[in-house]
């Protein structure tokens, strides 16, 4: 193998790690907000991602039938709508289900799991059990090839950019906005936050809805790299929990670092070992580290 080839493969493999990092972070982010800030284990997280994916599918079929000229342009708009749809359904879910169960974390686990099964069946009845493939704009497909033998996936770059934007916005919102202030106050001491006049119920509902909305964005973005079907969400849920738990539940920075760590370990070991062995190695590492640090990589400074 020539020097050029090694150089190209190293570059592409580096990007593979980065793009896996973006995928893991994007799917973990919504969960981290809900789990970390509210203590609710949302087993239906994957299905909120599927909502985003189906929103893209709806948009692509509508655009194709009503305005074929706009096929190249609908995608960013559809992602915003994916956020809004998932946000709305998240809002409703919190109102109808979650708020009754705040004092019973294990029951939320069961309730949201039931919700996820129900949602899967709704997708199946509405869109049919078979997978669908939204027509994606051409500019998202294929690879960017700056040199012979070097191909950087465009959809990977797109997911990476989207992840940076979404994560940045969440961090800014959490640490620079009124909502962020209220969320952080509620997380550190609910009773005291209530006493200072913060409507913690409203804060919870908004937090849950935003978490779900971000899941919707993730699902929408993943139509470029993965499948869109009633059970697509379940493909991501395990990895999403892994990222959040490993990072330390109450810390967004923890989620970022953990997604990066898991992605690099996985993608480097995949290159040198077989796919299944790489997964085993990654999981072993995570379990070992969690045994030594049960609170995850980053623990929030919360007075208990």
């Amino acid at each position: 193998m020539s020097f050029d080839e090694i150089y190209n493969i190293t570059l592409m493999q580096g990007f593979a790690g980065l793009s896996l990092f973006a995928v893991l972070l994007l799917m973990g982010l919504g969960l981290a907000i809900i789990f970390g800030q509210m203590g609710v284990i949302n087993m239906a997280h994957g299905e909120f991602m599927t909502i985003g994916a189906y929103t893209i599918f709806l948009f692509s079929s509508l655009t194709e039938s009503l305005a074929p000229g706009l096929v190249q342009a609908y995608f960013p708009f559809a992602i915003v709508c994916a956020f809004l749809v998932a946000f709305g359904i998240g809002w409703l879910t919190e109102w109808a289900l979650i708020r009754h169960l705040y004092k019973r974390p294990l029951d939320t686990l069961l309730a949201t799991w039931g919700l996820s099964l129900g949602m899967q069946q709704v997708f199946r009845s509405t869109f049919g059990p078979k997978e669908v493939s939204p027509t994606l704009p051409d500019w998202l497909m294929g690879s960017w090839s700056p040199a012979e033998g070097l191909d950087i996936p465009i959809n990977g770059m797109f997911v990476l950019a989207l992840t940076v934007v979404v994560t940045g916005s969440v961090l800014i919102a959490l640490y620079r906005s009124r909502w962020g202030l209220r969320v952080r106050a509620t997380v550190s001491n609910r009773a005291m936050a209530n006493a200072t006049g913060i409507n913690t119920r409203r804060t919870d509902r908004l937090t849950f809805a935003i978490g779900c909305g971000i899941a919707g964005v993730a699902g929408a973005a993943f139509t470029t790299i993965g499948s869109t079907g009633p059970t697509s969400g379940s493909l991501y849920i395990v990895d999403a929990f892994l990222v959040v738990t490993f990072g330390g539940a109450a810390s967004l920075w923890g989620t970022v670092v953990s997604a990066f760590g898991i992605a690099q370990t996985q993608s480097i070991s995949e290159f040198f070992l077989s796919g299944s062995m790489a997964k085993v190695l990654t999981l072993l590492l995570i379990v070992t580290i969690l045994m030594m640090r049960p609170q995850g990589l980053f623990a929030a400074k919360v007075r208990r």
Partner: protein
Amino acid sequence: MSSKYDNVPLSPERRRLLQGLAALPLFGVSKLGFGASLPTAQVNTTGLAITDTEVTVGQLHSATGTMAISETGSIQAEQLAIDQINALGGILGRKIKVIKEDGASDWPTFAEKSRKLLVNDKVATVFGCWTSASRKAVLPIFEKENGLLYYPTFYEGLEQSKNVIYTGQEATQQIIWGLDWAQKEKGAKKFFLVGSDYIWPRTSMKIARKHIENFQKGRVVGEEYYPLGNTNFNSLINKIKVAKPDCIFAAVVGGSNVAFYKQLKAAGITGAKQFLLTLSVTEDEMLGIGGENFAGFYSSMKYFQSLDNENNKVFVESFKKAYGPKAVIGDVTQAAYLGPWLWKAAVEKAGSFDVDKVVAASPGIELKTAPEGYVKVHDNHHLYSKARIAQGQADGTFTVVAESSDLIVPDPFPKGYQ
């Protein structure tokens, strides 16, 4: 309109007379042998759920859960075949009644439902299962209760049961001819094997490796398995780029399948640059993958919707009439469609619904009306069928590019491949 006599009780004599009259047609049929209808006592000696006008069969697939993606086509095809048989007058003068059970993509549920169908409902036969895992779960029950199962999926082989008729291809039928074609037509010598990590891809790749190394004198430059549900293939794709195979030989399934082809395309590996042959992409999977991501790659199956013959034209037309113009038909859907027809032929040959007699009559049964052309049941309960290679098109259809000249003999326990 009511008369004042309506409420008058019938005299016992009159009642008996009426009952006798009502029963007359039945006696007439059985005594005089009207039509092809044989007396139930003669065609059913083992207490199956069969009356003079009806025969009950079971259908056991996943209508819910992960596998519903794949199994829906089979459910539809079997129902279509049963409706068509009923429209022709049924089997031995009896209409087919279907009891549908949902295995819900859960193997213990499959086992439980199959016991229900065989023990409580006493069905004459069952059309069902899709994954090997579900078949393995129900097999002991079918053998113990002496039921009969028509199994539609192409699978890894290494199995042969008295109680199962396999209407899909076993591994050697799907793999060996395809690999020989790849070598002859595409000059492939270096192969990279990729699969999902479970029994079917692993067994298939084992056969493929033996064939490539021992019979074709080619080389396997990589063999990789990824967990079911894996959605990230970028590292694998880089490995493929390093190995530079002539042929990527793939058996990735489910949601992974979609991710695999989308990421191949995104990494610049397209049909125009790279030869890829797969065992796991039919028209059904194409819906999720998207034609533009699979264009130019090849698939090895026994059936494609675009197959050009008279049987298939009729089949595709009636399938679309029943399930809408957008419905697609994959390999397994067609194999599932064969089930009820093969059973009909075997029952009529045996002149009985008894499982033992139907099983004994099955080998040698031919189906000249099969959409895939012509099939025949081998002594080992698998079908003789042709092998075909088709190329994916950007619009999501397949164009058949090669077809074996002869029927390929099923060989579920291939020598030299273990």
